[in-house]
């Protein structure tokens, strides 16, 4: 803001001439609009709005006018300065917007070049399927029980009604620990010893799922592996029936393979259950409507495991009164579930530890 004008200069007073003010405004507007850069605009602003500009001089002269003329002159110069300031501000905004736009354009980079600073990790799908199965049963209120992989023969066989001369004991090709005739130790051939451990450990009601690694002396081929994973369910409570077995299996397969999938039971034989049943799962790909279905080979059903009512002798060996409690048990394979659910054609891919296999699944299955 200028102070009162004390040094009256009759020459400069001419600047207050209305025509001169208009000319100054016009010149300023032209300068503002013709500035192509912010630098040019800054120079033009200095010329037309600076202390030495015509309008600044005119403003300064107002103080020298007689009071009668002050008001009108003040109004004229004030409006003129306002128009000029607005024009420069507008142009400033325009040029700044252009500059910002240009910078953003210049700063563009190709983000399709992703720098792999961190490798992508992955879970093994066997673990993921196992956890998914566990979660289904935990959701039903069951618990997860585990046990050692190197197991006593008594728990792996005898307590499960597989006596030393039972034909089924030879059927299962077992890894024995040296010395085979004395050690009393085997690599468990199923997770059933965990069931026995659970029953020895606690009183019914028992609702447990026993997942884990098991061993049989099969050669590795496209559909077999000597080290594989199972999950077995065990329920012991008052009044448990085969209908409860069927109900549990139906709920489970619907959750793992898709709503509407059901199971079918077929009579079979397992030493640790009586009555016993094979579990077939309805084909969730074709529901039995496709004769050339590769998942079920056109039968509409896929054999997934074994089951039955816990044999009285197993309950007895585990210290549970078979006249008071009944129970059911079932066992299914994780590898088989994985192969069926995800179309894995060759067991080698699952067991050989090739990172490409795990990586394609990520961390959720």
């Amino acid at each position: 803001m200028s102070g009162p004008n004390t040094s009256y200069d009759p020459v400069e007073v001419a600047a207050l001439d209305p025509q001169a003010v208009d000319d100054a405004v016009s010149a300023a507007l032209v300068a503002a609009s013709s500035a192509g850069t912010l630098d040019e605009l800054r120079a033009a602003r200095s010329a037309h709005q600076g202390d030495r500009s015509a309008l600044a001089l005119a403003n300064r002269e107002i103080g020298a006018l007689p009071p009668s003329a002050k008001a009108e002159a003040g109004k004229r110069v004030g409006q003129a300065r306002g128009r000029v300031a607005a024009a420069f501000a507008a142009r400033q905004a325009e040029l700044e917007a252009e500059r910002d736009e240009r910078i953003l354009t210049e700063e563009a980079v190709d983000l399709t070049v992703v720098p792999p600073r961190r490798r992508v990790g992955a879970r093994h799908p066997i673990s993921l399927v196992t956890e998914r199965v566990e979660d289904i049963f935990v959701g039903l209120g069951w618990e997860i029980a585990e046990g050692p992989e190197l197991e006593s023969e008594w728990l792996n066989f005898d307590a499960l009604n597989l006596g030393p001369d039972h034909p089924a004991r030879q059927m299962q090709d077992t890894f024995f620990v040296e010395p085979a005739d004395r050690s009393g130790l085997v690599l468990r051939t199923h997770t059933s010893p965990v069931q026995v451990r659970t029953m020895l450990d606690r009183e019914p009601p028992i609702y447990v799922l026993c997942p884990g690694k098991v061993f049989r002396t099969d050669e590795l081929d496209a559909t077999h592996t000597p080290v594989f994973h199972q999950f077995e369910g065990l329920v012991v409570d008052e009044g448990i029936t085969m209908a409860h077995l069927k109900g549990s299996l139906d709920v489970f397969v619907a959750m793992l393979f898709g709503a509407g999938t059901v199971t079918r039971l077929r009579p079979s034989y397992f030493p640790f259950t009586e009555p016993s049943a094979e579990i077939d799962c309805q084909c969730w790909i074709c529901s039995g409507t496709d004769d050339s279905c590769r998942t079920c080979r056109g039968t509409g059903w896929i054999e997934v495991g074994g089951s039955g009512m816990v044999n009285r002798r197993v309950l007895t060996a585990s210290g549970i009164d078979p006249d008071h409690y009944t129970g059911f048990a079932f066992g299914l394979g994780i590898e088989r579930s994985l192969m069926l659910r995800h179309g894995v054609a060759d067991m080698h891919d699952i067991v050989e530890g090739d990172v490409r296999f795990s990586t394609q699944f990520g961390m959720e299955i």
Partner: protein
Amino acid sequence: MRVPVEWLRELAHVDSHVRGKDVSETLVRVGLEDEGVHGGGVGGPLVIGRVLTLEPEPQRNGRTINWCTVDVGQANGTGEPQGIVCGAHNFGVGDHVVVVLPGGTLPTPDGSFQVTARRTYGHVSAGMICSERELGLGDDHTGIIVLEHRLADEPDVLAALVPGEDAIALLGLDHEVVEVTVTPDRGYCLSMRGIAREYALATGAPFDDPAGIPVAARNDSGYAVRLADEAPIRGRAGCDRFVARVVRGVDASSASPSWMRRRLIDVGMRPISLAVDVTNYVMMLLGQPLHAYDLDSLSGEIVVRRARAGERLTTLDGVERHLDGEDLLITDGGDVVLGLAGVMGGASSEVSSTTRNVLVEAAHFDAVTVARTSRRHRLVSEASKRFERGVDPAVADRAAQLACDLLVRYGGGTLDDGVTDVGEVARRDAIAFDVGLPTAYVGLEYPRGEVVATLRAVGCEVVDREGQVVDVRPPTWRPDLVDGPDLVEEVARVRGYAEIPSVLPRAVGGRGLTHGQRVRRLVAQTLAQQGLVEVLSYPFVGDELFDRLGYAVDDPRRNTVRLANPLQDEAPLMRTSVLDTLLDTLRRNVARGARDLALYEIGLVTVGRPDQPPVPIPGVEGRPADDVLASILDGVPVQPRHVALAAAGDAVPAGPWGDAQRVEASDAVAWAVELGRALGLELLLRNHSRAPFHPGRCAVVTLADGTVVGHAGELHPKVVGALGLPARTVAAELDVDVLVAATGTPVQARPLSTYPVAHTDLAVVVDDGVPAADVAAALGGGAGPQLESLTLFDVYRGDQVGEGRKSLAYRLTFRAEDRTLTTDEVSALRDSAMRAAAEAVGAVQRA
């Protein structure tokens, strides 16, 4: 078990429209396993032909082919002779043969193929003259089928052959064979008698018991047999019934009838000679294994006894076997060993082409005795399979009678009047059966009448006194039926498992996952999120691995468990670290072309002990006594759960973003530390030397109280070399069980101060050998509780600090709970930290 549908029709009234597939489905419904349907793969036109001309034509390749014309009647539509090229030479002009005409189909292992007319050896061959193998009738492919030979024993059929007539039925090619697997409890289903009974049970069709034949009563004039088992196993006599019959004057050169040969082929047996075929046929029909002896090779009474020390026998398969005291033997006069009872006979007494007089044995041997002998000698026979699973002891005399009748009928000769039938089969006890049990077990209503009727249909004697409990005496062929649930299964399977309702039981409500299970998931998840890939490996390792890993002779990780029958002889041990097998997985990935790798595996390891006691194997009559149970549970080797990780190559590859960053030892350490942080644990590090790590690049990871969690670092270059790993492979192995035990108590929250933080930097100079962790620990201790964080941001070695020294620069961040710290207070705290470091590790503040 292979079940010819044609044979089944004879025993169980199979409806005429029923096909093999239907039979299979029916049998599966009552508990047999479906293994597919064979046969029926031949499709017409397959017709009878008569060879009109045959011209041998030698070929350049040395073979001679026959250019034949064959009369196929009107089957080819023209009545003209059919021109066919044939490579076989076992036939001549005038012979009747079997011709498949263009358009017909022949079975192949995968299905069938269609025969077409084709140009070959300069002729158009319009069809094929067939061999047995081409038709799936047997393995003989050396020659084509000449009906004059094949039907030699059926002259009437042979005389009626007309060229051009269909040959499918003539050859039995319309026979379908259903294959089923028999579960170990159903030994009786290893016979047509048992299968037919099951089929009848499933369909309600009548069943004609083929054992229901007239049998001559036992008398004293038969061949002398003595049962002399002086060492029964578990109180069960090795042989409780022995039937022997004699046929004299048999023509051993006579062929078995074609229907019998056909059935034997259908069930998967090879026709051999009349005597052998008859015993096999009767076994397949009734389930009773039989043995035929050349009577003239026997000199004394037959004695059944256990083997004596040092006895040997060369069995029919030509193997000389050293006998065990538990082996039950058939002997001649007690001294000459004739065979392993119920398993396999010896070579010396076998019927041969010169045999005239035959002794037929039909005995009942104990399942355990036979199973043990079969297992001991690794000798599985059709007989042992059946005895192990249980043979109907009541059928022995019928089987012997039927076999002798067939021998007489097809081989001539006469059956002796003497009937040997010694031994005593104990009558089975009745089971007191609650008729409500099926309903209680299955969850489906089974009316009393149905329960009783089903058990009777199965063959049980049921004494029903109108109470809740009935007496059920299972049939002689069902040794598997011993208690209530066994009978429940019979009731349930005959009604059908399909009717069992689906009811979800209401669980009592569990605890969810245990702390240990959640920790394990978190460990896996954390490592995966840090870029490592989870893999699995077999936990088997070889003897020399521990040397390659550089373990000292007395390293406890050499104490392991050895398998008696490993998968591979070179890997008989259970791993004692997960790295033992994870490193091999890393190597395999490198071999497959991967370069930058970071893997992990979570699994059990086995802690062997030199003084491993035998683990007891008590009975199963009840829960074992507490001390026995304890020695079972304690006798199982400890198997902690470990997590191991291994990495090689680049952590960050080179690219537009800059240079590559190689994986280094500190990465392995950082992964371990981060794992602890994910669990809320501040893990401590100490430099350490331990195989298989580089002695100068290994850290031991511990809990605050010093408990060892594991180790991390770079592998020893020798280990890298010995295992064929990429240079500078890094690794870590941590005990997950220790992490689980160290966590789980609820973390107690500290109040959060909202006063400002104060930062100050401090550079200290220490000897190069002083671990940074020790400096940090000293600084942290000296700085006191107001130290919020301590961050190492620079390490300097060089002229400014002198030879053998290093400078460590830290940023210390302080914050008080109750006020803003003044500059003077912060300086004092920093000086206190410096003094502590000076005292603990000889640190000097860097100017």
